[in-house]
């Protein structure tokens, strides 16, 4: 091979390489810097967008690891929407790695038309960067969101600039929640059904269980020891579980430290006593959901309490009832310290803003159309179709309140229906709690008492009545990349650590000194500054709520 030929070949290779490199660096350079082309909202002020007249297609991303949207148009409900409303949705899946996917989409400048996820950090980030479409111009033109969510909820959802960027999901005016204490009927009866109202009763009962049933977990506190926070809720009036996870204690107009709060201290001492005497699951902090489920389903717990009691309890209850009609679980009113008004013990919390939100990005070609669809979805017709399927399957006609009237197929095809309803649940982006729960209750009332759903009975009887309205505490936490956000991270670490350590402490004295140490560490990390920040946000919220 001649030298000339060789060098030519080499040149080709090098050229090829450098072209590859150029292509790569080129794309990565522009990705980051590409300005987002602003699709101006074609808000024709005169005519609202009519679904079904003009076809509408948009892309949709659910920002959760666990979320996978089912294929659009492959089931009766979305097929119906496709045919009658001419709406098509292209799913962008998180693939089990929502955080990465979300950041990649931002960094590459390719945002989906709709992002569905938690309120707070992510939405605020997008808004600050000018990537979200304000929904205010559409509010008046489409009736449903305004009617069902109400002005107060919408105000709370508004961002700092006074505009609305988030379409809420499962917003509500009524209390909701799944948490609470459930007792194992069989054990309770065999032990002579003692009074179970105060923490003293609880302690005595757990002791008795431990003695008579050494194989049984006296008090199962669920995943991450959630049930332990119930003890805080019952230790004084108007304390609620959310304060533990926010790590703040409201006092007058101020938010104060959790670690130095006497009520929190008392509850941790009580938790320590129960844990030390092996009355609480010893795996409380480390166990998996499956481990909890195994114990509850087999009736190996005497009292079960966490934030998901009505969820895990329903399955466990029917499994145990199948073996023994006297068995199963019953939800009881939250336990409390002697002298505390049981009506002021809150083991659940809800806020009127509901669970999460949809935000329409500036990538959307037709933001008004998307809003029109979400608004239709959250209205009566949309909710009926997406929750129970198109008319003629599981329901036929409605009553005077708009509630669908169940068909026989609804009652008989339980398995198939549960499967379909789970599929439809992945399309429920604008859940209207008041309408759905109201309609369910209307239908449930018509059933005989023993046919009613365990979860519904527990919820309407107890869980919802012990749910604290925490709307005023919504979004009070700082963004993670701010100074306060760094402090929050430290304080959270300290709080998680001390909560676990307090359980393993050898006596009351050690619990106190652990909490003292936590308070010191937290103050060193800047807790005071964080509390000031959160207090200000909280007061702003209160103003927003009272302003209307």
């Amino acid at each position, binding site marked *: 091979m001649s030298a000339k030929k060789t060098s030519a070949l080499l040149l080709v290779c090098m050229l090829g390489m450098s072209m590859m490199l150029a292509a790569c660096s080129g794309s990565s350079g522009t990705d*980051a810097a590409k300005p987002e082309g602003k699709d101006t909202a074609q808000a024709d002020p005169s005519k609202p967008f009519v679904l079904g007249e003009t076809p509408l297609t948009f892309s949709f991303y659910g920002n959760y690891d666990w979320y996978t949207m089912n294929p659009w148009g492959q089931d009766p409900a979305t097929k119906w929407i496709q045919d009658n409303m001419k709406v098509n949705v292209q799913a962008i899946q998180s693939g089990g790695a929502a955080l990465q996917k979300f950041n990649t989409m931002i*960094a590459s400048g390719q945002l989906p038309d709709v992002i569905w996820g938690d309120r707070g950090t992510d939405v605020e980030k997008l808004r600050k960067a000018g990537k979200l479409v304000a929904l205010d111009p559409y509010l008046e033109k489409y009736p449903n969101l305004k009617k069902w969510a109400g002005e107060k909820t919408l105000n709370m959802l508004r961002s700092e600039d006074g505009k609305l960027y988030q379409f809420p999901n499962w917003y509500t005016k009524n209390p909701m929640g799944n948490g609470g204490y459930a007792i194992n009927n069989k054990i309770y009866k065999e032990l002579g059904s003692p009074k179970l109202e105060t923490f003293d009763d609880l302690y005595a009962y757990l002791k008795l269980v431990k003695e008579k049933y050494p194989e049984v977990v006296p008090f199962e506190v669920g995943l991450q020891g959630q049930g332990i926070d119930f003890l805080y809720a019952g230790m004084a009036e108007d304390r609620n579980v959310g304060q533990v996870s926010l790590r703040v204690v409201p006092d007058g107009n101020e938010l104060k430290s959790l670690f130095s709060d006497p009520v929190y201290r008392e509850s941790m001492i009580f938790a320590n006593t129960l844990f030390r005497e092996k009355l609480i699951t010893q795996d409380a902090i*480390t*166990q*998996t959901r499956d481990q909890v489920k195994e114990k509850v389903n087999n009736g190996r717990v005497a009292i079960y309490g966490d934030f998901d009691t009505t969820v895990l309890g329903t399955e466990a209850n029917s499994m145990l009832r199948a073996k023994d009609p006297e068995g199963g679980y019953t939800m009881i009113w939250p336990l409390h310290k002697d002298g505390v008004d049981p009506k002021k013990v809150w083991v659940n919390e809800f806020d009127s803003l509901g669970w999460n939100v949809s935000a329409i990005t500036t990538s959307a070609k037709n933001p008004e159309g998307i809003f029109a669809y979400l608004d239709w979805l959250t209205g009566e017709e949309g909710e009926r179709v997406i929750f129970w399927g198109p008319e003629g399957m599981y329901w036929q006609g409605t009553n005077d309140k708009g509630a669908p009237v169940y068909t026989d197929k609804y009652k008989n095809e339980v398995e198939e229906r549960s499967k379909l309803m789970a599929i439809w649940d992945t399309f429920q982006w604008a859940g209207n709690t008041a309408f759905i729960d109201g309609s369910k209750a209307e239908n449930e009332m018509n059933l005989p008492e023993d046919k009613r759903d365990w979860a519904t009975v527990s919820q309407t009887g107890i869980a919802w009545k012990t749910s604290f309205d925490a709307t005023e505490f919504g979004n009070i936490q700082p963004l*993670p990349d701010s100074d306060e956000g760094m402090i929050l991270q430290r304080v959270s670490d300290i709080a*998680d650590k001390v909560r*676990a350590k307090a359980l393993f402490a050898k006596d009351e004295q050690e619990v106190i000194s652990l909490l003292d140490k936590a308070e010191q560490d937290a103050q060193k990390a800047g807790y005071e500054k964080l509390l000031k920040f959160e207090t200000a946000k909280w007061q702003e919220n209160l103003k927003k709520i009272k302003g209307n």
Partner: protein
Amino acid sequence: MKKRTTSVSPPGADHKSFWFRFSRQLDLQLMVIPAMALILIFSYLPMYGVLMAFQDYDIFQGFLHSPWVGLKHFKMFFEAPEFWTVMRNTFVISALRLLIGFPAPILLALILNEISHLRFKRIIQTVSYLPHFLSWVIVSGFVASMLATDNGSINMLLQRLHLVNEPVNFLSIPEYFWAILIGTGVWKEIGFSAIVYLAAIAGINPEIYEAASIDGASRLKKIWYITLPGITGVITIFIILAVGDILSAGFEDILLLAKNPVLQDVSDVIDTYVYRVGIRNSLFSYAAAVGLFKSVISVVLLTAANMMARKLGRSLW
């Protein structure tokens, strides 16, 4: 390396020009190109990203428009109250891995080599390397349920044998964590890591053993004077690499096994800290700064280890 090049180029080619030598082995060089391109594109090009550590990176502004802040994020890390705990844990866990996790597969390979029953040897080998193919999610699930206080098989066994009266809460006692972590790691990787050593042992000339037998060397003597020296080359290379990796104390295994916050004081290492504080909160610059710090120390350690090895005549480069 030297051996290979001389076998390709004719004797006496060494003094010829670079281009001449290059052209003589053009076919070989072409084969290297894809691998080089791969490394260049996926390992070198993204390296500009480490500059992020000196910026307040804003994902919307992108790399080109984020403000430069110098050493702010490094300072933040060094001044963080967690810094010393994280560093201590990283070094201790790595040192334990080096001390226990590293020799374990060598030992296994030596033992396996002495087994003359072929079927038995194969079964042991297969069984011992199978756990390597299980993901940490599954392994940690096993470990958690085996070590559980309530219905955990280890506790049940200990109680049946009357070794303990009350079940032990293994996964919540900080003193036990390092042992559990290292033990699980050894169990999972021992068989797979032993394969390399077994291969190296297989390369030793059997005649040397025969000669030793004639000289009356015992089994242990043969291991000590023939097998071990025969594989020191491989061992040195792996030790150098392991030293360079000393700041990678593990990530998935720790994240999954140390669920109890009580363990944070003994379990928090650089990688889990970066994940918890940096990535989960989208503090990319902070995460990049800590990551860069780790890489720099690793390179220093790797170079130092290699220099030591060079003195012994067995360096990596």
